[in-house]
């Protein structure tokens, strides 16, 4: 709660100071607020764990900053610090955009901490509406405009579906709060009933969430929107939106569906997850544009992340957290380097050519993040995949097999990027500021630290 407030205040301050001050200063200010918010997370309001659901939990508070909420908000705030720090000056100048990013982050944090469908909906909208604007923030760029319109149309559609789901759920259980919904779900599950209102309601809410994480068959927007949006917005969508949506998705299961019906909905989710993994990886294979490729990679990663929802909540939480740490740092690195090398306008693989010769350090970091995304041991990506796959193995063996096939396919396109960067000759060059080096160093530390000592990193969650 404290960190949420700090971010909100920070967003307003940035918005207003930006009128006079140049963008650079407002970014510094924003990052200062975010760091403060990050530091406040451990002191944030304690709550019960979502997997120890109890009666006292819900009706009074509509948000609860329990351990999973705090852990995921930490990742989100850290991710936003990366994005603001590394992508300054890539978009149109203007502190209003930075304010929007921070408002969007507030929505993301609400999505990690809701205990009530209303809060969840508000979180999703607070997250999405600034993004519609951000996607179109390059006003003179036709593709940016197209992306904004597409995103807005599809988003509106999914919001409508989500709201319809909420309405149905209200109709069936007379409440939006986790308490009454969980009760209802348990009642339905124990009596082996299938009341249409409740079932359709849950289905529609899940579909709304699936849209946000870009799961099959609701993922079609993401390659087009990623490609057209300005780089900073794209990486924000790829990192913050995805992790926030997964956190909300994850929270929805133990909190509202509960153990009684976990298997029923788990089966559907497993199918979605399998299709998402296949579609994401296969789609990525033939892409030439790096941003589209990363969009498909993000779809595939969403598929893996969905596996974390299927497994027992506590294990799933740990696995998802570890995975998201690796996902955030690797994606931030790739997008940063892509942003730098594509400054000349070339947005295909070829943009990376010659990086290995001209900037050994940058090429090394790029390779490391690719290895992590592909899930090669000693990187965070491997630790996350290992935790997810090994926990899902006993109950969802076919899903794990498909996920492994997907990972094998993914090596094909991830390694292609670093083949271009290292083996091919070209002009790619990266000029880094000190801040960039520090932030990249932090991201690399996270990839390697989580990859080498996952047990130790999980220990952090105990505090």
């Amino acid at each position, binding site marked *: 709660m404290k960190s949420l407030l700090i971010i909100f205040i920070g967003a307003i301050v940035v918005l207003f100071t930006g009128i006079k001050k140049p963008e650079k200063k407002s970014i510094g200010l924003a990052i200062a607020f975010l760091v403060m918010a990050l530091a406040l997370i451990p002191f944030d309001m304690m709550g019960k764990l979502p997997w120890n659901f109890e009666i006292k939990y819900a009706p009074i508070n509509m948000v609860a900053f329990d351990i999973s909420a705090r852990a995921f908000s930490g990742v989100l705030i850290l991710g936003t610090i990366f994005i603001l720090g590394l992508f300054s000056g890539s978009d149109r100048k203007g502190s209003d955009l930075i304010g929007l990013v921070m408002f969007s982050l507030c929505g993301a944090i609400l999505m990690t901490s809701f205990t009530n469908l209303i809060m969840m909906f508000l979180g999703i909208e607070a997250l999405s509406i600034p993004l519609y604007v951000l996607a179109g923030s390059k006003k003179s760029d036709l593709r940016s405009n197209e992306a904004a319109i597409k995103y807005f149309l599809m988003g509106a559609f999914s919001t409508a579906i989500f709201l319809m789901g909420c309405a149905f759920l209200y109709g069936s259980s007379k409440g939006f709060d986790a308490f009454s919904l969980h009760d209802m779900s348990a009642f339905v599950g124990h009596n082996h009933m299938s009341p249409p209102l409740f*079932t359709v309601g849950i*289905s529609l809410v*899940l*579909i709304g969430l699936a849209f946000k994480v870009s799961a099959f*068959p609701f993922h*079609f927007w993401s390659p087009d929107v990623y490609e057209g949006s300005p780089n900073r917005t794209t990486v924000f969508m790829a990192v913050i939106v995805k992790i926030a949506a997964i956190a909300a998705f994850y929270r929805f299961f133990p909190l509202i569906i509960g153990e009684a019906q976990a298997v029923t909905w788990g089966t559907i989710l497993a199918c979605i997850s399998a299709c998402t993994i296949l579609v994401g990886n*296969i789609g*990525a294979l033939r892409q030439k544009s790096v941003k589209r490729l990363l969009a498909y990679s993000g779809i595939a990663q969403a598929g893996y992340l969905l596996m974390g929802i299927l497994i027992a909540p506590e294990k799933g939480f740990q696995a998802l957290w570890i995975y998201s740490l690796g996902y955030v740092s690797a994606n931030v690195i790739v997008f940063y380097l892509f942003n730098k090398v594509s400054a000349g306008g070339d947005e295909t693989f070829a943009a990376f050519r010659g990086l290995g010769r001209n900037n050994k350090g940058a090429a090394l970091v790029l390779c490391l993040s690719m290895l992590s995304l592909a899930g090669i041991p000693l990187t965070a990506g491997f630790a996350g995949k290992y935790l997810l796959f090994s926990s899902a193995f006993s109950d969802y063996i076919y899903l794990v097999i498909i996920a492994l096939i997907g990972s094998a396919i993914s090596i094909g396109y991830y390694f292609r990027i670093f083949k271009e960067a290292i083996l091919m000759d070209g002009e790619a060059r990266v000029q880094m500021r000190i801040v960039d080096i520090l932030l990249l160093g932090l991201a690399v530390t996270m990839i390697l630290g989580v990859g080498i000592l996952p047990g130790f990193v999980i220990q952090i969650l105990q505090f």
Partner: protein
Amino acid sequence: MENLLWIILSPLAGFAISGLAGKYLPKGTTGWIASLAVLVSFVLSFSLFNGLLSNPAAIKKEYFTFIGSGNFHVNFALSVDRLTAMMMLIVTGIGFLIHVYSISYMHSDEGFYKFFAFLNLFIFNMLILIMGSNFLMLFFGWEGVGLCSYLLIGFWYQNEAYGKAARKAFVMNRIGDLGLLIGIFLIAWQFGSLDYDKVLDPAKLVAIAPGMITAICVLLFIGAMGKSAQIPLYTWLPDAMAGPTPVSALIHAATMVTAGIYLVVRTHVLFDMSVFAREFVLIIGLCTSILAALIGLKQNDIKKVLAYSTVSQLGFMFIALGSQAYVAAMFHLTTHAFFKALLFLGSGSVIHALDGEQDIRKMGGLRKAMPITFWTFLLGTLAICGFPYFSGFFSKDEILAEVYKHNVVLWALCVGSAGLTCIYMLRVLIVTFWGTFRGSEEQKHHLHESPALITIPLVILAVLSVFGGILNLPPLLSDSIAHGMHHFLSPALNLAEVPEELSPLSQLNLVVVTVVVLALAFWYVRHKYIAKQVVPETDDAMSGMGKVMANKFYVDEIFDASLVEPIEKTSDFTYKWLDRKWIDGLVNSFGKIANAMSNLYGKMQNGNLEYYLLYMVAGIILIVGYNLMK
């Protein structure tokens, strides 16, 4: 006893310092730092040894768990009993002398600091090998010394032949290592542990099938074959002479190659249970000893002669092990470490003086120019020949006596092999140091005695080679200090306090026979090389059996034709047909399928919003429909 850890950490630290900072330090410094690191280990080992003299209980220390899985635990643990302590003294003591020697020997080499880094790394690994308290530690050290041996044989890697020799040593060792590894797997499977304490417990062994114990012993011995250069895995050792001479002295004579002996002595409880394994060890040892001695007769490279001599002497040690004379083997290991290190360093001194010349046909008459080298080399030769009262005399005679107890025919063969040793060593000695100088004028002009850093280690080793026999005198000579080493080692090896003895008369007989054989050999060599001043013929002039021996019985060629070529042909076939055509084809077809699917999918993703919404609606209908129908 934290000393245990310091003993292994000191050379490791030396390795780190000379390896990382050596480039930036003044040249001599690295050598002294490295030597100091080994000296620290030696001093600590010596104090440990002193402690063990009064109290034979092994000192054990566990540090952390390597592998923990269910009930199966392997720890990083050190354990020092009297056997280990003795090995440690040999490794660090001789290691130190050779380090000091190398400071002068390698002084003009570009890779000076690298050389000392590798030497220190070797000492570290060797100590792990002997000090570890379980088979995994042993294996760790085993592979580590193998790596260092590879690095040092190929130290002058610009020379392609040397690089190939290093590779050969590595590959041959890997074959042996495979046997050792399988043996260790069997041990882990049968005993559920790799700790020496648990595996080498006679009470436990009773429960294991005899066939399994034999299998384990044979596999462990295959590992020993590789490391200690026994038939058929010995061919790497002569080639390993490509490395700098101090390396040959340290690794390929005194320490690493004795790891196989140490392994068998350490696991002798297992070998005690299996007659077949012991006979196998005995026969292999005997064949190796005779074959290598025969080859040694006709070699003209001074280091090659010494290398074959080492193979032959190692064969002797295995003969002792096969006859269950573990103390005799350790005794010979010790004296051999003294005199063989001495001989190698002596040959190094000669090579150094002649600016890299190794062919004895181009030496001769060095007696006058290099008196210290000559005298020490002479003492070393007498020691290895088993000249009465020199160290080799006692250690070899003890082995011969043990073999005699075992089987008279084998004994006769061993005596023959000892005679051969005498011939080829005296041949080298005389051709090198007597007669007239046969090298170039320029070499003659430069001929000089080596500096003190080289001659001092020679003198120390010479003293040890002469008096080393005191360690384990036979009772025939003196009752009060007899069997010193036997008494020392018996608690570690669980042996009887007083060894079983032959009657004094038959002991005397044996000694007389050996001495007569040696005298014959002396006479033959004197007649041929001093009286007639024969110089070994050039390669072209050789014929008959001599040529076969000079060409090492064509063993390398036989290996090539019988193993390497068939394997290469099969490999070629599987590469072209199986791998390229079928397996690659299959794998590529997966890639093609994935690509084709990607193309197909690309048609769905056409950028048209209406289509996207259509897919979404289809998805919604499917999911909601499925849930309602259910």
